[in-house]
């Protein structure tokens, strides 16, 4: 007999994978004023909350590389997604014992904080020398964090995020 948890995972992961593939293929079409969500990030956060740390960190690196490969940005940033996602997952996994103790809104705020830090790190490196840091925060980091967090909340509404 398959447990309810496993049944839920059997739907959740293919669904997130499908969203990731669609997100890659139609990346240009889901953008609002140049702001696009990072569905892979949602996938990885769910993975960190539900699966073992080893799987989550390997997935962060490998999928990060895949994302860099199929979503070409400026060529000098090949590897940036992998770097940022590995560091985010490592931090998230280390803080997880604290985060999962938080209740309701604080739990989600901490997840939003992680997404925000990820985008801040990524965008500051990505736009270094192009745009000043304040613009990077209000024009890209905040809206992108909010959009990605919204997708995470939608996933949570269907498949509640839960502790390992």
């Amino acid at each position: 007999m398959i447990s309810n948890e496993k049944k839920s995972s059997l739907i959740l992961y293919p669904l997130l994978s499908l969203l990731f593939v669609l997100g890659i293929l139609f990346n240009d079409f889901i953008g609002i004023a140049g702001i696009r969500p990072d569905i892979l990030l949602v996938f990885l956060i769910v993975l960190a909350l539900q699966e073992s740390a080893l799987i989550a960190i390997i997935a962060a690196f490998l999928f990060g590389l895949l994302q860099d490969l199929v979503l070409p940005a400026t060529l000098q940033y090949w590897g940036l997604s992998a770097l940022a996602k590995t560091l985010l997952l490592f931090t998230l996994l280390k803080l997880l014992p604290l985060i999962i103790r938080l209740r309701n809104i604080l739990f989600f705020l901490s997840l939003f904080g992680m997404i925000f830090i990820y985008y801040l790190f990524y965008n500051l490196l990505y736009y270094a020398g192009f745009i000043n840091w304040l613009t990077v925060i209000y024009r890209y980091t905040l809206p992108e964090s909010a959009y990605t967090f919204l997708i995470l909340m939608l996933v949570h509404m269907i498949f509640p995020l839960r502790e390992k």
Partner: protein
Amino acid sequence: MLSKLYDFIIRKHLEILTVIFVGVSLLLLSRTENHVVLVLQTRWQDFSSVMKKPLLEREHKRRVIDENKQLRMDIFRLNQELSQAQSLIMENQRLRDMLGFRDTSEYELLPALIVYKGYKDGTNIITLNKGRNDNVRENSVIVDKDGLVGRVISAGKRSSLAAMIFEPEARLSICINPVRVYGILKWHHGNTFMIDDIPTSVEVREGWTVMTSGLSDIYPANIPIGRISKVTSSENGFTYLIEGEYFVPFRNLREVFILTHD
């Protein structure tokens, strides 16, 4: 000793993996314009362009209808200008014949649609829906009606990756009109560029245009690039600090032309 090492690896596997992954990522970041990556990215774009085609075509149709309205209005205005231009063309042709000039253009303009503008806003890498099947090659020059856009960096069968000229490392050999003085253009910020190697012994004014010089192996001569907006003297006093704006609105680009050899 070995068991201690084994225990250490088991205990700290997350940290060890993170260090390895971060190291690999940094190594990749330090290698720019990796050829293998370029080829893989082009192949992926080749594949994904087939999937995106229906949506792109729908969006393209909508834009074409809007443009069509605007163009009808423009046609009326342009017809008036055309009659004036025709007389000038005839005069020009007569003068060229007298001087023994020939039409030296060896390029054809191939219209191409930008099917992907990069993962992040402001990226200088774009994907075009034309590839080797349409005679597009590496270093094919890309222009739009306003001027120079960039060059193809990798051509797949049905699509190609192109780099626009606004990036910190980009350097262009240019010529300032009407004085025909040559220099090197660098991207500055946003839609602006900078030229800092023109000697102050030459007169340069705001409003003058900047074009490709034809001295580069990639870009042919006389493709418009931008207009000078500010001319100041550098600290040493020997050269100008010239700022200007690109003619091409890179962020709003949707369609471009690729210069293909006959």
